[in-house]
Every structure is written in C-alpha cells, then in structure tokens.
C-alpha cells in the first residue's frame, strides 16, 4: 500500500507541474500584460520601460522559473488589478465552488444510481428508454443553455427561484443553490448512470446473483447488496475523474448564475488579463482535482485489493 501511495503521489506532482507549465505558457500567449495594464494611448517607449520594470521582457523560461519558485512557496504574486495576493483571492472564492460542486456531485449520484439500476433491471422497456432519453438529453444539452432555460422557466416565468446570485447564508443560500446544482447534476449524471446500468446488467448475469436468487433472497436485496455493490467500483473511480469535469462545468455554471466561485473568478481574470489570478486559480483547481483523484484511488484500493499493485 505504501509504495502504491508513493507512486500515485509522484504521478500527481508530475501532473500539477505539467499543468503549471501549460497555464503559464497559455496565459503568456493570450496577450501582452503591458497592453492590458497600460492605457491604450501609452506610447511604445513607455510600454517598453514598463515591460522592463515588470520583467515581462525576460525570456519565458526565466519568467517561468521565477514563477515556479514562488508558486512552490504559495506565492503567485499579486493581482494586477487589485494588487492583493492572487492565492488569497482564489481561496476566498473556493468555498462557493466547493459547495456547488459537492452539491452537484451528490445530486448527480442521487439521480444516476437509482436510474441506472432501474434502467438495467427493466432493460428494453419504457423505463429504460425514458432514462436513455434523459441521458442523451443531459449529454447533448450545453450546460449554459440548460442554465439559461432553467433561469427563464423557474426564475423569470414562474418566479419560484432567484435567477442568479449567491444569496445570504441559510435558506436564502439554499434557494440560490438549487438551479446551478440541478445544472451540474444533470451534466454529471449521464455518464455515471450509464456505468451503473452496464455494471448492474453485467452483475445480474453473474453466478452469484443466480445463486442468491436461488436461495430465495428478496429481489431488492439481490439488486442492492449483490449487483450494485459489485458494480460500484468503476462508478467511484469515474466520480473522481468526473470531479475535474465538474469543476470545468462549474466555470460555465458559475458564469451563467453569477455564482462567486473560483470558476467565475478565473473567467474574470482572463477577461482582465490578470494573469497571477488566472494562474493561481487554475493551479489551485488542478491541485484539488489531483487530490480528489488520489483520494478516490486510495478508497478504491482499499475496497478492491486487486488494484493495489
């Protein structure tokens, strides 16, 4: 187990390092910070002086080395825009993002597992087709479109729920959470549902299920205790993998619903060419995704000894 953890940790470090390179190169490609930070009428000479002062004219590799050294100490520099520490700004926004992604994951699981079981158990019936319709629709609908539709229906026409915003702590927050959580849930559920369906289908043909049935075990117990439990491992792995996708989805969801999380912050900072904040946001998300995946792998390893190799 120890070697397995060490191996996974090493892989994680490599992945985060790779992401830091990509983020650094891309942020430097999307625009010259001098153009963004200085008013448009600034003459060329002054731009040059500014680049010199800020160190933007050094070779990219040197700038990256500096960036990495500081980042390893948790220093992503100060926001160009607000002059506050970039990492602090990101972590201020993190609770909102984690709240939303957690709620989205829970909702997706609550949708996907029952649907997957029903769909497998009632294979090729109306119910299976209905869940297939849901899955196809969930996969096919762009996340922002679904978000806007929910806003129009539940926010504007029915006025049941606030169209956007974060709300105040408590019931108000819960009300504001519902629509974005549904969007994330619907976005995430289909893949899990398909996995549960195929896993349960597979399990239902296994000998142990036949044995259980032959013993006279209740059908519900057969399904949950025998079939579902044996098909859940790939589902957990995929939930971990999907966590990354979910954070990606959160970027769009947060933008549509004005949810003040890291995703929205990342979009804002890209728009304002506030590179330190973009870099801190993306690297922070990458670290979280890696940690979640590591945790998932460890859990799966504990559940299924065959995987620890």
């Amino acid at each position, binding site marked *: 187990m120890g070697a397995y953890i060490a191996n996974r940790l090493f892989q994680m470090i490599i992945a985060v390092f790779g992401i830091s390179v990509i983020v650094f190169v891309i942020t430097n490609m999307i625009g010259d910070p001098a153009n963004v930070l200085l008013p448009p*009428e600034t003459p060329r000479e002054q731009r040059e002086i500014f680049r010199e002062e800020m160190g933007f004219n050094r070779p990219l590799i040197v700038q990256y080395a500096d960036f990495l050294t500081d980042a390893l100490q948790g220093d992503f520099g100060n926001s160009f825009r607000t002059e506050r520490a970039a990492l602090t700004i990101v972590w201020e926004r993190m609770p909102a993002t984690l709240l939303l992604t957690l709620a989205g994951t829970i909702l997706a699981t609550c949708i996907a597992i029952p649907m997957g079981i029903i769909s497998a158990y009632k294979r090729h019936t109306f119910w299976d087709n209905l869940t297939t319709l849901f899955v196809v629709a969930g996969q096919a609908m762009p996340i922002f479109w679904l978000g*806007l539709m929910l806003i129009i229906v539940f926010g504007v026409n029915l*006025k049941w729920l606030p169209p*956007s915003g974060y709300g105040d702590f408590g019931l108000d927050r819960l009300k504001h959470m519902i629509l974005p959580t549904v969007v994330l849930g619907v976005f995430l559920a289909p893949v899990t549902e398909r996995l549960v369906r195929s896993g349960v289908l597979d399990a239902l043909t296994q000998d142990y299920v036949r044995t259980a049935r032959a013993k006279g075990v209740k059908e519900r117990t057969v399904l949950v205790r025998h079939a579902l439990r044996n098909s859940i491992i790939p589902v957990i792995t995929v939930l971990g993998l999907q966590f990354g996708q979910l954070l990606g989805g959160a970027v769009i969801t947060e933008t549509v619903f004005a949810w003040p999380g890291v995703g929205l912050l990342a979009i804002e900072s890209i728009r304002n060419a506030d590179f330190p904040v973009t870099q801190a946001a993306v690297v922070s998300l990458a670290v979280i995704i890696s940690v979640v995946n590591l945790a998932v792998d460890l859990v799966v390893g504990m559940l299924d000894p065959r995987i620890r190799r």
Partner: protein
Amino acid sequence: MSSLSPRELHDRIYDNWERFYQEGRIDRRTLMKAAMVWAAGATAVPLLAACGDDDDDDDDDTGGDSSGSATNTPGDDESTTTEGSGDDATEAEDSEPEPTAADGGGAAEGGTLTVILSESDLPTMDPHMHNLRTGIITFYHTHDNLGLRNKDTNLIEPWLAESWENIEPTVWEMKLREGVTFHNGDPFTAETVKWNWERIINPEQASPQIGNHVAIAGVEVIDEYTVHVTTTEPYPIFTERLQNFQMIPEMLAQAEGDAYLAENPVGTGPYMLEEWKKGQEIVLTRNPNYWNSDVQAPYETLVLRIVPGLPTQLAELLAGNVDIIRVVPFDQMETVENSGIAMPVTQAILRVGFVRLDAMGRSGPSPFEDARVRNAANHAVDIEGYIAALQPGGDRAPALLNPKHFGFDPSVEPHEYDPDLAKQLLEEAGYPDGIDVTWLRGPSSMPNQDQVDQAMQRDLEAVGIRAEFETLSDGNVFTTRHNEGNGGDMMNYNWGSYSVFDADGIYWDMLHSDSIFTYYNNTELDALLDQGRGSLDADERMQIYADAQRIVREEAPMIFMWGFHSVWGVSNDVEWSPRPDEIDMYFTARPKA
C-alpha cells in the same frame, strides 16, 4: 409558417401516431416511443416560447403584483420609455429632476434599489485608482466631486465647489462649500482639495487618471475654503476636471494609507458603504447627514450587483429581482418592453462611431490618401438607413463631432447617400474600376456593429469600393495595431472623448497630427486645434471649431457615422432616467407613485 401554434402542431402530430396505432400500422412499442418524443417536445415548447417571446404567450401577467401592471400604462411617463416597436425608441429627456432641483417629496423613505452594475467586480474602492466607468458610477454615490454636469446643458455646475473664476490665464480661484463633512466626520476644506489634486498628479501614486489632470500644475490654499488652481497653460476645459474627480478625506488617508482606501470608500456622498461582498455586490446605505438636503436619496439601501453575462442580467430584470440594468441588447428591447415588468430606456451618449480611413498612408500607400476617394466612401453609405434599421437611435456626426460636443456646428451638412456621385468621384480620382481595400475590425461597444459593417461593406461594394474584413477578437491587439500605425486602409473606431463634452476632446486626439491615434495630417487643421485648445474665449472657440468642422467635412478623413444611443432597462416600479455622460446617478431614482 402554418397558422397552428407550435403546441397545437405538436399535438396534431401525436394524434396521427395514435391513429396509426389504432389502424394497426404501427405496434404499441413504436407508439410508446412516439409518446416519449412527444412528452419531451411538449416540455420544450413552452421553453422555446419563453425564450423567443413569440405569440404563444401563456404568461402575460408576469407582473405578479398589481402595482407592476398598474404603473405600466403607456404614456405614464412620457418620453422616458420607448413605446411602439423596439427600433422606434424615443429618447429619455429631462423628465428627471436634476440632483440640484429641490424635491422634498421623495426624501427619507425606506426600501432597496437594486442595480446590476457590471459583469465584473471593481478592482478597488479607491476612487483615484481605477479607470472604469462602473467605478465612476459607484464613487458618484459614495463620494462627491467639485463640479457636476447638468445633464440638459452638459455644462459643469458647482457641487462641492461653490464657484470658480479664471483670475489669470492660468490661475483659477475656487470657493468651496462650507460645512461639508465626510462619512467619518472629517471636514471638507481647501486642504482636502489640495491634497486630492496633488495625490492624483503625483507620478509615484501611479493613478490611472493622471492623464486627465496633466494640465494641472498645482494647488495653493488661500484660506480654509478658497484655493487657487494653476494650470500649465490656458486651459479652456478646466471645468471638465472638476467632475469625475472624487474627494477623499486627506486626514484619514494620511493616517490609514492606500491599502485602507482600497477597501473603504469614505467620502461625502449621499450613500455610505455597508458591505462589499467581493464578486457579488456592493451594498450601500443612505447617508443620513448628507450636506445637500435637495438630494435625499429615496431608497434607504442601494445594492450594486455584479452579474456576468447579459442573458442572466436580463433574466434578473424580467424576474423583477433588480430594478435597473445598464445594458439591454438591441434585439432584446422588444422583450423587455412586452414584459410588463420593465421598459427599455434609451439615451443619447457622447461616444461617436466612425470608420477611419488611412488618409495619410500611415500604414502604407492607400487609395484613401485622395480626398475624392474618401468622399466617395462617405457618399456610398446609407447612414440614415443603418440608424433606422440597426440602431436604437443615433445622432449623425457630419464632421465627427457629436451634437453634444461644445463647438458643434449644426449648419454643417452630412454627406448625402448618393452612390452615383460616389462612383463619379472614384472615376475622377482615377479608379473607374473601383478599389480593393482592407478593413480592420475589433471588439466594439456599438450595438449591432457586425450588421452595420456588413451593410456598409455591401453598399461600398456597390460603388466599387471592395473592402475585405480582417476581424480581431482581442481588443488590445486591435488597439495596438491601430495606435502603432498598422491599421490598414479602413479601421472601425469609436471615441468617448474621455467624457469631455468639448470639441477638443475628440478633434485633438483623433485628428491632430501629433496624436498617436491619427491617420490624417493637415497643418491648417492642426493650427486651428492648437488655437482652440489655448483659448479661453467661448465665442472665439465656437468660431475656431466651426472652421475646423468645415475642413473635416470636406476632407473626410473617415466615414462619418453617428453618436451612439445606449439602452438601459428600468423596472416599471422605479422612476429614473440615465444621463448623456453615462454616469448613472441612482440617488435620483424614486419609487413610482
């Protein structure tokens, strides 16, 4: 299109399926499949209806409360809102009392006014350390300025300054209002004015607004409520510097430092900061001790929300959650108008759009170096037609100036739409077969910029000016290309004059040969513009700019377009109108009776 509504059409299709089943032409399973598709479709139809706002309107009492629909009587508030079709927007004009107008009626009520300020949050609460319109708007509520623009005359009138006088060509004497205190109790005095100006012109402070104040040389305190402001040269637009320049309490600033100011907007304004929820909203509460008893903000609380994405902003307005949004896209005006919840309000603003022509071959030889070709381009385009079909309104700018600029001469005639004349001019210039040119385009705040460009491109091609688009998605790349002289033959441009309502604010930057923006070089015009900039005599300046306009009209260094109109969305429960300088003053908003 069939005369059936989408839903009826849908039901009819399903009826057919059921008949097929009864006739034995399909089996039960196929029918079930059809039922599923039908069910999905039936859910989608109202969605689409809501989205497209079509005639299948099952939702006409969205007002919710009776007061919403009661206040929506057409003609209720004359010219402030648009009536009839979306593209026939009338303008918001003077139905709103100026802040200075005495109006005790709305004073000291409760309630909350919610406004969507912007798509992204302010970087700071220090009014001197940003260059954003949304910042200006916010700090007009928490702080005060020395002068305030009258939105009818566009002239700057006294506010924290009581009067000013030009005692020498480069010295202005200013008397300040007595008895004004900041939110923290500090007094507003001559020292305050001196400290604020010295802060903003200090290069070490690195204020992004330093450019506005380059002509200010220094401030001298004469007595507690009098200052002398010295300018580097005679400065005709001095009064423009008295607005959008907010006063910070100097004692507090010196004691607490810049980091404190970046979080705490302490001013003398009609509202005080209650909470800044970063990335979400700025909550302001009414200043009960505001010095100007004529401006008692009717709403106890003012919430300035940050909502990225115009569709969500629009949804918030139509859900009745917010009272004012600052941008209504042109194609959504009708939706807002028919909502029964809010109305689009159109206001002419100072910003002017045009297509710059490379009249001096700055980015290489260009056919537009010939004035006949430039005039041909101006005659080839149907400006009135574009305004009527594609804009929420627009004021023609026959020689680049907006009618709102001081110095605008209404006797200068715009180019007429005359394709034959355009062809003739091209032929005279030696291009009987027309010309091929490039047209650089970047992101734009103009409504329907793409559609206007396409219409213009087609009209130009009709006379033989074949323009090929090069479209850049990055505004900074575009600006850099343009400013560094690599714009090519034609470039989209618009100019807000830094909110200076004076011909100098656009002519010098856009056309003087010393400006980094210019693609035109005319020593005669340069001389006039220098003269206009150095003169303090209003009549003389009028004459100078009238002469300049004749030259510009004749020389046509750009395709002249129009001054923009902007569209706000305002709840039917609120009486408020925007201003031509786009500095929204929400303390003038009041609940509708």
